[in-house]
C-alpha cells in the first residue's frame, strides 16, 4: 500500500479499486476502504460491503446506511492492528501487515 487510502473489492465499470479481487460475487465490488492516518501511521477500515468484513474474526461495523434506493456512507471506521487477518464476506481472506509497525 503506497498511498493513504486504498479501495478493495471486486471492482466494476464505475468502481475505482486499488486492489481488485477476482473472486466470488459474495465479495462486494467496493468491499472496504483501508486508510492510513498520516499522523499516527495507524490503519482504519471502513466496511462498505453487503456481506461484511471481519478483522481477526471480529465483524467490523458497516458504514453503509440504506434509505430507499440511496446508499450513504456514514463514515464509520474500525481500527486495524498492525498485523491482522481481514475476512471478506467470509469467503476471502487477506493477511494485513503494517510495514512501519508490524
Amino acid at each position, binding site marked *: 500500500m503506497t*498511498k493513504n*487510502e486504498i*479501495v478493495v473489492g471486486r471492482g466494476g*465499470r*464505475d*468502481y*475505482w479499486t*486499488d486492489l481488485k479481487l477476482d473472486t466470488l460475487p459474495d465479495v462486494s465490488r*467496493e468491499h472496504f*476502504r483501508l486508510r492510513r492516518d498520516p499522523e499516527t501511521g495507524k490503519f482504519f477500515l471502513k466496511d*462498505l460491503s453487503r456481506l461484511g468484513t471481519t478483522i481477526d474474526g471480529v465483524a467490523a461495523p458497516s*458504514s*453503509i446506511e440504506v434509505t430507499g434506493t*440511496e*446508499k*450513504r*456512507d456514514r*463514515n464509520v471506521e474500525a481500527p486495524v492492528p498492525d498485523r491482522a487477518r481481514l475476512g471478506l464476506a467470509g469467503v476471502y481472506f487477506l493477511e494485513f501487515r503494517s510495514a512501519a509497525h508490524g
Partner: protein
Amino acid sequence: MVNTMLKYAGASDLGRVRRNNEDAWYIDAERGIFLVVDGIGGEAAGEKAAEIAVDRIRARLERQTGTVEQRVREAIAVANNEILRAARGNPQWQGMACVLTLAVLDDGAAVVGHVGDSRLYEIRRGAIRKLTHDHSPVGAREDAGELSEIEAMRHPRRNEVFRDVGSEEHSPDDTDFIDIERVPFEPDAALLLCTDGLSDQVTADYIRLLVEQNAGDPTTATRQLINAANTAAGKDNVTVVLVEGPKFAASAVLPPRQRLRTIGIIPLLAGLLLVALFVAFVLRIFQPAKGVVTVPTGPRIFYVPAFSGGPGAPGESVAQALIEAAQPGDIIQFAAGREYHQPVRLKSGVTFRGSPTGEMANDSRAILRLAPATAGPAVLADKVRDVRIQGLRILADPQAPLPQGILLVDSSVEIDDTEIEGATLGIEVRGASKLHMRACTIRDSLAGGLLASGPGSLWLSHNSFLHNHGFNLAARDGAEPSLTGNVFDKSTLELPPDLKLDSVREHNFLLDAKPAATRQGVRKP
C-alpha cells in the same frame, strides 16, 4: 436532499460556427452535482468522449461511498480510463478526450474537481472570482498576471490544454491529473461552471453583470450568457451551468426604497424636513463611536431623493452631501426615471447606481441633465479608483450643452448599462486612467464618442457607438483599447499603430464594414 432551496439551470449551444456540439452538462440537484464537459476529438469522437464522461461520473457519484473528495477523484478517474478503453476499441474514436469541471455540494461547501480549461466562477456581493486554474499555457500565463484577461481571450494558442480526461491512463490520486479543492458555497453566492466557449468570448465582469441582472432566474441568465458568447463570435460550442444559493437573488437585487422616490407632491417644507432628518441620520452613522470596534458590514445604500422642483431646486445639494458621506463599498442610488440637474463628482470605491439592478430599459434609468448654466462634465472622476457607475442616462442638447458626459482624469472606473446622448464628447479619458465599459451606448455626440489620450487602458465590451459626429472612438498618445463585442455604426476609429482594424472587426461589429467604406475616417498608422 440538502438542496431544495437552490435555483439552478444549465444550457448548451452549438455556437454559430461548429456543426456538432461536443459539450455536455449534467445537473443532479438532489445530490448537489453540477458538471460541464467539453469534448475533444474529430468527427463524432469529442461528443462520444463527453457522453462517456457524463455517464461514468454520474454513475460513480450516485454511489455515495467515500468522502466527497474521493468520490470526485474516482469519478473523474473512472471516466478517464473508460474513454481511453473505448478509444482503443474503436479506430473512429482514437485520440478522443475531454476537459471538465465538476462541483459537488457538501455541507455549505463545494468540492470542485477540475481538469483542463473549463471554468468555475463564484459570483457574490457584486464580485466574480475564478476558482479554477486553466490547464493551458495561455491560462497559466493569465493566472500569473503575464496576460490580461482580454489578451488571453484573444491569444491564438488559447485552445491548447496540457491536461485532459481520456488520453492516458490515470488513477484518482495522480498529482498531474485532477485539481481538487473544497471551496465555501455561501447562501448569498452563485456558482457558474462553463466551457471555454463562454470564457473565451465573454469577460468575467460581463458574466457577473448578466448573472446579477437575472438573479433569481438562472434559466434566463444562462440563455443570455449563451447569447452573449454567440454575439461576440460564437466560434465554439458554449455550455453554462449556474446554481444560485438561497439568498443570492435577495443580495444581488436591492430594491429601491419607494417611499423616498415619490416625494414630489409633499409640500416643499415637509420635504426639506425629511431631507434634513435623512442627512442628520446619515451623518450620525458616521460619528465614530469611541472604544467600539467597527464591524464591517455589507454595502450601505444611500438613496438620493429626486425633486420635482426643476433645476436648482434646493434639495439637489443633498446628492453631494450623500456622496461625501459615502465610504468605499457603499452605493449611491439615484431614483430610476427621475431627473437630476447637478454634476456628480465620483468618489473612490463608491458605486453610483441609476437603475434597480435587473432592469435595462431607458425609462428605468435615472437621468442626469445639467442645468443650462452649469459647467460640465456631468460626471467627473478626478484621481479616483474602483468606482462603478451603473444604469445612468446622461443627456445633453443645445439648451443644455455639455463638454463631456463623463470625464476621467487618472482614474479607474467601471461603467455599465449607461447611455450618454448629445454631449460634445460622450466620454473623455485623460492620463493614466483605466476604464471598463460594458453594455453602454454613446450616441449623437457632437465632436466624438469616446476620446482617450494618455497612457490609459480601455476595456470596452458589448457597447454601442451610434450617430456620433467626428469619431466613434479615438485612442491617442499611448491609450490602449481592448474591444470585444462592440457595435460601431461607422468605422471612425483612431487606433494605436499596433492594433489593426481587421483584428477589431474580427471581435466587434462595424456596421459599415464594406471594403471601400472602411478606409474612410481611419487614421492610418
